[in-house]
């Protein structure tokens, strides 16, 4: 993919960062406004496709580190699982840190909705990682066709014929 004109790249420079900020806002306020982990994560993940479209494949590959996104995905998933387990004496996914009506605040750092917004953040991490990886792998498979190289660090599957 070739880089586009200077108009597109400067618009990308200007707006891509706002996309990320907006995405993070949507993730953080998922528990009481429309939106949440998946929607915000999808908005953040458009950043990568912005970069790809505006700056072209060469800059894209110089930029991207697959491991970062894989790590984001891993952290999000495990955190989600742990937040699910927090409710365990009652049941899996029970909202154990939420503050009941008229109850006492456990800690100022905890959001009022309890595990719901924590899970939103976890899902946000997961979706940012996963959708970025989808973009990377789909573009990588195009490159694999052009150059015949393997993708994603795989050695390539042999045909298993003797």
């Amino acid at each position, binding site marked *: 993919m070739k880089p586009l004109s200077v108009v597109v790249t400067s618009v990308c420079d200007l707006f891509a960062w706002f996309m990320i900020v907006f995405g993070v806002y949507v993730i953080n306020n998922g528990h009481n406004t429309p939106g949440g982990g998946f929607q915000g994560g999808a908005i953040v993940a458009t950043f990568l496709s912005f970069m790809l479209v505006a700056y072209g494949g060469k800059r894209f590959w110089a930029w991207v580190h697959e491991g970062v996104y894989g790590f984001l995905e891993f952290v999000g998933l495990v955190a989600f699982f742990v937040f699910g387990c927090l409710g365990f004496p009652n049941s*899996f996914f029970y909202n154990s840190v939420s503050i009941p009506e008229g109850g006492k605040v456990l800690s100022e750092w905890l959001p009022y909705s309890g595990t719901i917004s924590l899970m939103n953040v976890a899902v946000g991490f997961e979706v940012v990682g996963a959708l970025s990886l989808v973009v990377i792998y789909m573009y990588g498979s195009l490159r694999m066709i052009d150059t015949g190289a393997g993708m994603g660090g795989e050695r390539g599957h*042999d045909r298993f*014929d003797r």
Partner: protein
Amino acid sequence: MNWHDHLPAFLVMIPLLGAFLTPFVASWGKLVRNVFFVLFMALTLVVGISLCTATFDGRVLVYVMGGESFSLTLPSGMSYPIRILFEIDGFGSLLILCISIAAFAGALFSINYMDRFSGWKRFMSLYFLMTAGALGMSATGDLFNFFVFVEISSIASFGLIAFWRDKPESLEASFKYMLISQVAAMLLLLAIGSLYGKYNALNMGALASMLRAGTLERISLALIVSVLAFKCGAFPMHTWMPDAYAETPSGVTCLLVTVSQASFYGLIRVCYSIFPALTQGGTVGWILIVLGCMSMFFGVLMAVVQHEIKRLMGYHSISQVGYMLLALGVGLLALGNRNDIAAYGLTAMKGGLFHVMNYSFYKGLLFLCAGALYYATGTRDLDKMGGLARNMPWTAGMFVIAAAAISGLPPFNGFVSKWMIYESSFVVHPLLPALAMITSVLTLASFVKVFQAAFLGPAKEKFVAVREVPYGMLAGMAILTVMTLLLTLFPGWFMGNLFENAARALLDHQGYIRAVMGGI
């Protein structure tokens, strides 16, 4: 905190945690990776077996996700459940047992079978996800949640069918399966949505307690039955089945068989527990019987002419699914009439459920044997094989057991379940057992052909160096062989504790409602 109460949650949590941890663990080397894979599958198996034993006395286990207490199905002020809940009765635990054993055997087999390929991280993740989806499908008590688990297991299986992505055949098989599966899943969602629009409930028990006969319900039932019949490979839309089964890595095929069983579970659950008001008239029963007979007969006819070992077994799967549809259809005819149930309905259902378990073990074993042949010889074409019984005595022995069981030869478990199906369907119409027996004879003929072509005959020069497959693969096959032999030797114990229980759980749809809705 009593761990025993939380078993239904662990059933899905353990494979999901395995899938999440895999990318991290898989980079620590081969030994850690293999131990991790087998350990998590073994944990799932332990949970599955303990759940199964917990339902032996006819109890229905209920687990509410996110509830103040795991058993609080109706929160204060609510007249119907709003949370996701798991509901496991005798029938569900039967499927859970089949799936967890097949998944464990497939995992042991895959360790050696997939050793020479890269992409292990993805393979393990998808395998765990597929197990979680299939287990969730047979544990859930919520229609929408059922759809979600269907999609989890199908998306994972799309990835695994196309795992050898440098083979155009597997890509094509995956695309074909995906097309049929997605259309089916979306129509299923449409049916679930229209039920929600009318009754404001998604819980199976709550829906069953409110459901009245009407046009919308008829349309929804027709959509759900046709969609799930397609997903479990019944005749008119069976085309994905041989392709997908043939192109998947063999350890996964063993699991894929049980995933289609889980779709079958959904079909039967909907017919018996949710819509008994509509299915009692006999129409749906006859539809299932006709679908079953057609799948049985045409599946085996197409299997006889195949020359590729895994495609042949794929066509046999269609015909085996036909037996189960026939049996449960006969049971559906008797539903609602106590005399009919005592006369033939209960026998048909017990036979059908026995066949569900038999099928998942011997069919999985056959696919693993085919995989072992492929691993050793590098070909799937029966015409190119020959004389392998000397090189691979263990594989040959286990193949004989599985082939005898699937063809219904008398001492084996396949004979018992098929005999119960013949006996009960004879009461409905004498043509049905005749058709089933012809199918059985053709199955025997085709497996004699396979055995003769692959294992007997003069030794071929090409295969002089072929050795027995590694121990991991043999262990995977041995587990399923032992299960087949146990079912053969102690059919009475399994019948009394598992199948009788499962059939009674299906017939007692008031009990299924009561477990969720309390004393209504």
